């Protein structure tokens, strides 16, 4: 008697990233959904506002996609205190930096999730943050009169996340936990795309429903090794040599005005591969297999 069928939410990286338009606010989780990030660069999306850190942030800036960053941490990785493309673009005023901090960011994201125009936060009181970011207003709380920051709601249009597994209906389970920011991004964003290492049967999800970290992603994309060169908890470790190679060319471009290496990197790994599988072939299977976590 049951009529109709439940609609799967599985799609390709190209279909998923087609949701994103120039000028949108994009939120990038951690562990980093690098395959989706590369697809954003491949599509040559422009004027994005991004909530991101690390390689994803730097690569999106290097790829010319970013107008503004909601910025809480832009470390470059091993021994590189600041992400090079971010640093250059910020110092030259080529991107707008909405300066914040993790507790302020999570407050703004929570406000969005809760349908509130703001949430108060204490961390940041006494710092320069409300001075360099006038959207953060000092306020007196209406109960005790204490000084707090009023953080406006931060509303991403699309969140891009990486996880271990999902079923085809958008029930996502992280192994080893999601990164600290992922669930905040998902709750705040209008839409959520999750790339996963593996698709599992719905029955496997229902066997452990409390392990479901996201109940209904708008799109699920199967992208094994999709976090490469970054890590994927329970699956593989980061590819440190690959990251170092990126940092070398990005630093040369940013600090020594030698953009050729970075341009070649972007061409070789972001623009030229048509699909994620093409990218993986270019990286090489042996290299990928050597990154196995345990």
């Amino acid at each position, binding site marked *: *008697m*049951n*009529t*109709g*069928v*439940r*609609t799967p939410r599985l799609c390709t990286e190209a279909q998923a990233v087609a949701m994103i338009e120039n000028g949108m606010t994009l939120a990038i989780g951690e562990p980093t959904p690098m395959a989706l990030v590369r697809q954003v660069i491949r599509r040559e999306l422009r004027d994005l506002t991004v909530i991101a850190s690390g390689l994803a942030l730097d690569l999106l800036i290097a790829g010319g996609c970013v107008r503004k960053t909601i910025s809480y941490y832009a470390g470059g990785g091993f021994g590189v205190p600041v992400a090079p493309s971010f640093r250059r673009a910020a110092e030259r005023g080529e991107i707008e930096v909405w300066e914040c901090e993790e507790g302020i960011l999570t407050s703004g994201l*929570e406000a*969005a*999730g*809760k*349908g509130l125009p703001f949430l108060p936060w204490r961390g940041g009181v006494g710092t320069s943050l409300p001075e360099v970011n006038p959207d953060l207003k000092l306020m007196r709380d209406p109960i005790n009169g204490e000084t707090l920051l009023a953080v406006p709601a931060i*509303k991403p249009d699309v969140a891009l996340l990486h996880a271990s597994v999902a*079923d085809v*209906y958008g*029930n996502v389970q992280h192994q080893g936990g999601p990164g600290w920011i992922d669930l905040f991004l998902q*709750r*705040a964003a209008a839409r959520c795309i999750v790339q996963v290492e593996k698709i599992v049967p*719905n029955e496997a*999800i*229902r066997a452990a*429903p*409390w392990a*479901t970290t*996201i*109940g*209904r992603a708008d799109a699920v994309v199967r992208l094994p090794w999709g976090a490469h060169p970054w890590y994927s908890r329970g699956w593989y470790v980061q590819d440190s040599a690959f990251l170092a190679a990126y940092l070398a060319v990005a630093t040369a471009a940013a600090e020594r005005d030698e953009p050729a290496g970075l341009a070649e990197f972007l061409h070789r790994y972001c623009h030229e591969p048509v699909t994620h599988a093409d990218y993986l072939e270019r990286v090489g299977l042996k290299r990928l297999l050597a990154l196995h976590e345990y």
Partner: protein
Amino acid sequence: MPPSCSTAELLACFLARDLNDGEELQVGVALPIPEAAVRLAHLTHGPNMELIFLGARMNVHHLDHLPMPAFGWDARVVRWAESFSDRGHRFDQVRDWQRRVFFVGGLQVDPHGNTNLIGVGQDFRRLQFRGPGSVGTSTLTTHVGRYYIVLNSHTPRIFVPRCDFISTVGWGSGGADARTALGLPGGGPKYCITPLCILDFTPDEKRLRLVSLHPGVTLAQVQAQTGFELVIPAQVPTTAAPTPEDLQVLRTQVDVAGALRG
């Protein structure tokens, strides 16, 4: 000739037909009619509906048989969960509730669909009848795409010109902009269903209006049992009987124990 059915079955089938595929249907405890309705809708035309009981979110369209009694009273319902809507967060994603549908009861309802679960009396510190409290209804009705007011009886003590206390805002003091003026993003109450009739709200004033009378109920009876003047259209039909198909699914796959038939 439509099959005979109880008023509870009539209402469950009416509600079920008003629910759309893809919606999230959240039902609290002690509301057997909505509970049956969402499960009926899920089986008949809602393969993408998500049911939320006791914080467990599920899609059980693939199951041929959804046993009563009441999920809402039975913690074992979590065995069908795919995820938990609460996860210790509960109301951290209300921005996403446009597709969510909810159901509320009440000790009192006023002409604009504001309802009261707090208590009856003039002095809050010495109530004549202390109600159970608002549960999560103030928050849910603020944000959900729409909700239904579901009442187990229809008397002048329930339908009052003014609630002694308001726990959920329907259309406030009236008018199509009543909710936006208060900053309430949800769509407000759509229908109010009772053992006598189905009511909705006029588009401009947002006053309770008679939609249909259940079989055997007269207009005079409804008016006598309502403590204020309802808007009465020129034509008031009888509440449409369930289709035989819906009634069969309800009785054989949802309410197998006959809880709504009594």
